[in-house]
Every structure is written in structure tokens, then in C-alpha cells.
């Protein structure tokens, strides 16, 4: 046992002392975020008196919370006993969590800048079960974390195979093969090909909230004063728009680029013995792993810019409760065809050998698309602006031909491909999203029809998996039923475990 790096696990361990620092910092940050308008009032608007009673009360509460978190640190222990990972915590009420090691699905690491500075990691442990029982340890030394993970993995193998593992093997890192490493040039390509409109939306939402806060704090109406000033100078709104839009786009473009670099800096993607592993990030280093059985489906996207660069973004979706599934999936923001092929091969080994039969959805879907994305928005905009704009509000009706054109394109690009063992779908107007699913990963099958769809003889087919659903909308009802019956047959005769 002397050389066993995991030996420390047999006795109760506290977290690294950095955890206290982290807890306090997190607390301070949260408080500051909640209360900065209050501070602004304090600094800039002395007319508005703040009751000193509240201030004292607030400071007292803060002190108590800080004290409690320090006590919490000293009451937090983790150790391994009888093939179970045990966590003890709780200041007032004692909580003891026992997790059988073979139920642990993934052990993920996360490192913020502070973590990196002290060479500690936060560990997230996710277990099987439809209700996501997951918990985290906010800071332990990196070697200890690695030893813990290796120990968990070797123990899982041992329990799974019921074979004796000699003591040397315990704690030895498993074999892995580097599939992909993103260079700065790759990152640039990825950044450029991101969806910039989404960033624009986010900025707008953020800015709105920010402005609101400032207005509340300083008790002024920014828009009114801005409007006033502009009117005074005979400012041309059109000119402002002409200047503003490119500026705005430039900002969102830059922000997306920065965000991409921050998130995916030095991304490395490995094929491990049991699945895949990914590490990335500049300030916050994130490490995530997925075991193959836990991967339920695979998604990949491409858009015209990505096609130009010949890159794809890929997601491996893991089984998890819905609340955590977004965090559980492995995202590769950009990789080349060969990497995608490797992932597909690992998830669905037979895919390349099988014949896939292509199918299309019904043209009836065009009407739905025009209704939702053309008629409803156009009517809404006309109604909202007719007072202000007068007859020129009817220009909004130009949305209609645009929606019609886009819906035709949407229908033309929707394809599904059926095979003996699985299904692939491809859909999208400009960003094409593909999904690959094996039948035996499906949990439930639903055929759903509205009154209108019943009249038109079409239906939505929904295949639920433990990592999200795959839908085929507006497929002819006979086809939907054939796929439903076939999928059920495949699930019911397949003896493989879906996880």
C-alpha cells in the first residue's frame, strides 16, 4: 500500500484549504452582484438616505454566513469505505452521502484561474439513476483528485469484471489516445463560424438589464434624456441606425471570438479506454469525460461558413436527468470530418456498413412554418406599430414571402435516414443539424397529431432517449407508424443495456 497513490482515501479527508477562500470569494461575488445598485446609490445619490439599521443588519448576516461557511469547511469529509465513496457534511444537520463506486458514472474536473494558481481542482461526481444524484467537492489538490478518479475507474473495472486487480494497477492512469487538439488558427475559424446573432441577442438582453439597474439606482430615465439630447441636435435616427448596426455587429462578432477563445483555448479531445475525454479553457479549465455506454446520441452542426472551413461542431449527449444534461454533454466546437467519423464509429460501429433508406417529411409543414414564422409575427408587428408608423406598418408584410421562401428551404433540407440499427436525421435552413441515434438507446416512442395534422394525414414522431428526444415532424402517418413499430421491435428484442 505504500506506493498506492489512492491510499489516502481510506481515511476521512478534508478539502484543500483553498476551499475556504473559494467559498468566501463566491459569497462576496454573489453579494456584490446583488447589491451593487445599492452601492451606487450610496456613492452617487446622497439625497436618497439608506437606513443604517439595514446596513448593520446586512453586515451581521454576511458575517454569520461567512462564519458558517468556514465551519462547513471543517465539517466536510470525503473517504472511501467498503466500495462506497462517502461524503460527510453539514453544520447543523449532519448529512452523510454514500455512493457505491460502481454507480459513479463520471468524475469531472473544473479549474478556475484561482484553482489553477493553487493547483487544486473542483470535482463533480455524477451517478446513474433517472434523478440526477450528483454532488461536487469544491477544491482538492490535483494529484489527490486524479488519484481519486483513477481509483474510481479501476474499482469500477474491477467490480464490473469481478476479477482481482493487483495492487500495482490501482491508481494507474488508463490508456488514452489524443484525437484532436485545437490550434489558435482552428480557434479563429471556429470563432468566425459561430452564430453571431445569438451573441447579439445576449448582449442586448444583458444591456437592457444593466441599463435598468443603473436607472433604478440613479433614479434617472436614460432613454428620455438620450432622446431629448438627440432631438436637440436635430439628430437623424436613420443615420444612427446606419452607424449603429455595423458597430453592434462588430461588437458581437468580437465578443463571440473572445468567448470562443476563452472557452475552448487549447482544447484537447481524447479517446479513452471507456469513452471520450475533453479538456479546454483559458481561465477556467474544464475537463469532462463520457463513457461510451452513457452516450445516447450524437449531434453535429454545420453552416455555410463552417462548410467553407470544412469544420463541424459535435455534441456527445450523455444520459442524465434533464436538469443536468446540458452540462453533461461533451461539446466539440469545431473538428474536421475525420474526427467526426471517429466519434460516429465509436458510438455506432455498424453505421458505415449499413444501408440507410432516405425519407422526407410532408410538404404540409411549409404551412405551419409560414404560420408560425410569417403570419403570426407579421400580424403582431403590424398591430404593434400601426399607431406609430401609419400605413407604412404594412411593410412588415414583407416577412411573409421571406417566411415562405425559408419554409420551402426548410422542407427541402429535412431528411431522415433509416437503417436496421439506427436512425439519422438532418435538418435546418442555414445551420444544418444532424442527429445519429441507435434504436436500442430509445426509451419511449410517441406518435402525436393535432386535429389539423390528422386531417392532412401527417404526424410528429418522437423518439425519447435518456439524453433528449429526437423528433421527425410532419411525417406521413403510415411512415410514422412503420418507424414506431420497427423501433419498438428493435428495442424489445435487443438485450444490450442502453447504458
Amino acid at each position: 500500500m505504500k506506493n498506492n497513490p489512492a491510499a489516502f482515501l481510506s481515511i476521512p479527508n478534508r478539502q484543500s484549504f483553498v476551499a475556504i477562500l473559494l467559498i468566501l470569494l463566491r459569497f462576496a461575488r454573489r453579494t456584490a452582484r446583488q447589491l451593487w445598485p445599492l452601492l451606487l446609490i450610496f456613492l452617487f445619490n446622497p439625497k436618497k438616505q439608506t437606513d443604517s439599521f439595514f446596513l448593520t443588519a446586512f453586515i451581521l448576516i454576511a458575517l454569520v454566513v461567512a462564519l458558517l461557511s468556514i465551519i462547513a469547511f471543517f465539517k466536510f469529509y470525503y473517504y472511501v469505505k467498503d466500495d462506497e465513496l462517502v461524503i460527510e457534511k453539514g453544520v447543523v444537520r449532519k448529512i452523510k452521502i454514500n455512493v457505491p463506486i460502481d454507480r459513479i458514472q463520471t468524475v469531472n474536473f473544473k479549474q478556475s484561474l484561482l484553482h489553477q494558481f493553487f493547483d487544486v481542482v473542483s470535482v463533480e461526481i455524477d451517478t446513474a439513476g433517472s434523478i440526477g444524484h450528483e454532488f461536487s467537492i469544491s477544491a482538492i489538490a490535483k494529484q489527490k483528485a486524479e488519484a481519486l478518479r483513477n481509483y474510481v475507474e479501476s474499482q469500477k473495472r474491477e467490480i464490473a469484471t469481478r476479477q482481482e486487480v493487483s495492487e500495482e494497477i490501482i491508481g494507474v492512469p488508463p490508456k488514452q489516445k489524443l484525437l484532436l487538439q485545437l490550434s489558435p488558427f482552428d480557434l479563429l475559424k471556429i470563432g468566425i463560424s459561430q452564430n453571431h446573432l445569438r451573441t447579439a441577442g445576449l448582449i442586448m438582453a444583458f444591456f437592457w438589464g444593466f441599463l435598468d439597474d443603473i436607472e433604478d439606482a440613479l433614479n434617472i430615465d436614460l432613454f428620455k434624456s438620450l432622446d431629448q439630447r438627440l432631438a436637440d441636435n436635430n439628430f437623424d435616427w436613420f443615420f444612427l441606425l446606419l452607424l449603429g448596426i455595423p458597430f453592434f455587429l462588430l461588437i458581437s462578432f468580437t465578443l463571440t471570438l473572445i468567448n470562443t477563445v476563452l472557452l475552448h483555448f487549447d482544447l484537447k479531445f481524447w479517446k479513452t479506454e471507456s469513452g471520450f475525454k475533453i479538456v479546454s479553457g483559458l481561465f477556467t479549465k474544464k475537463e469532462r469525460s463520457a463513457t461510451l455506454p452513457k452516450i445516447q446520441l450524437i449531434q453535429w452542426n454545420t453552416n455555410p461558413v463552417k462548410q467553407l472551413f470544412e469544420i463541424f461542431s459535435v455534441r456527445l449527449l450523455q444520459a442524465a436527468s434533464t436538469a443536468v444534461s446540458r452540462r453533461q454533454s461533451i461539446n466539440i466546437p469545431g473538428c474536421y470530418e475525420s474526427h467526426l467519423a471517429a466519434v460516429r464509429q465509436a458510438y455506432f460501429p455498424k453505421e458505415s456498413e449499413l444501408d440507410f433508406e432516405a425519407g422526407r417529411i410532408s410538404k404540409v409543414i411549409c404551412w405551419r412554418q409560414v404560420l408560425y414564422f410569417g403570419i403570426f409575427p407579421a400580424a403582431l408587428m403590424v398591430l404593434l406599430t400601426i399607431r406609430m408608423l401609419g400605413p407604412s406598418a404594412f411593410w412588415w408584410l414583407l416577412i411573409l414571402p421571406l417566411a415562405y421562401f425559408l419554409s420551402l428551404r426548410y422542407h427541402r433540407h429535412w431528411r431522415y435516414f433509416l437503417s436496421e440499427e439506427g436512425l439519422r436525421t438532418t435538418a435546418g435552413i442555414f445551420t444544418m443539424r444532424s442527429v445519429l441515434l441507435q434504436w436500442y438507446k430509445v426509451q419511449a416512442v410517441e406518435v402525436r397529431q393535432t386535429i389539423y395534422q390528422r386531417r392532412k394525414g401527417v404526424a410528429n414522431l418522437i423518439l425519447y432517449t435518456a439524453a433528449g428526444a429526437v423528433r421527425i415532424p410532419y411525417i406521413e402517418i403510415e411512415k410514422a407508424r412503420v418507424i414506431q413499430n420497427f423501433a419498438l421491435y428493435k428495442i424489445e428484442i435487443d438485450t444490450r443495456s442502453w447504458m
Partner: protein
Amino acid sequence: MFENTQINIDELPVVEEVTFQKLDPAYLKVEYIGTTLFFGLLFLGFLFLSLFGRWGFAWWIGLLLGLSIFWFLVALALVKKSYAIAGYALRERDVVQRVGVIWRSVTTIPFNRMQHCEITQGPVEKFFGLSTLKVFTAGGSSSDLSISGIRREDAQRIREFISQKIEEDEK
């Protein structure tokens, strides 16, 4: 031994051909009572608003009241219709549920994908001796089945049956 025989698509079991088991007639009453309670509370709310609110019986309260009376009648009519459609079926390897007048859906869960199943009973259901059978999968709440309006004894028998099937599968 590995078998890989050709499958004839036309010979696969067809979900739509099962005979759906209807819900217990008493469930109609449960639904009527539930709908009436819901709208009754709504009407009471309007009453309070016009009695004690500072607008009195304003025109918009009248409008909302009219709308909700209309909805109440529609909902009552739909109870009967949805009862006619709602049903469930146990097959050798799965459970099928059919629901919905406006959105009709047929959901099937194979036994070898079920996590667990349970019986619940609301106060009104209890009065009429009915239960709700719930079947959970790992596919999230939107794919879980919830079959209301089964006689209590039947629900218990079905639960036993399903639990046994789940256990068999885990062997």
C-alpha cells in the same frame, strides 16, 4: 449464438391494432368534478374582484367572465370526447397509452426501458375508488406515462405485473 434473420416489416406487431382498454366510467365524474372545481374557483375570483375590487363589475371583468364561461362549456364537452379516446393497452413487451382530443398522442414504453412504476390517488379519485398509474423511464418527464381512471384493484394488479416484468428484464 448470434442470429440475424431478415425481418419483414409488414409482419411486425402494430401498435395501432391493439384494442385499447377504456378507462372506468366513474372517471368521467372525476373529470367533471375537477373541471367544475377549477372553473368554480375562477368564477369565485371574478365575484370577489367585482365585489371588493376598486373597479366594480367593469366591462373587462364581464368580458373575461364571458370567455371563461365559454371555455367552461368547451371543457365540459371535451371531457366526454377525450374519455372516448383515452385508453391504454398492455402488450407482451410494452405498455401503450392513447390520449387527447386536440393533440392526440400514442405513447409506447417497452418494459425493458421502464425504471419503476407507482400508483397515486387524489382525494376525488379515492372517493370513486380510482387510481392513477405512473410509469417512469430515463427519457425524462415528457415520455413518462400517467394513466388516470383505472380501478384501484386493476391498477394494483397492473403495477404488480409491470414490476415483475421490470425485474425479469434486470436478470
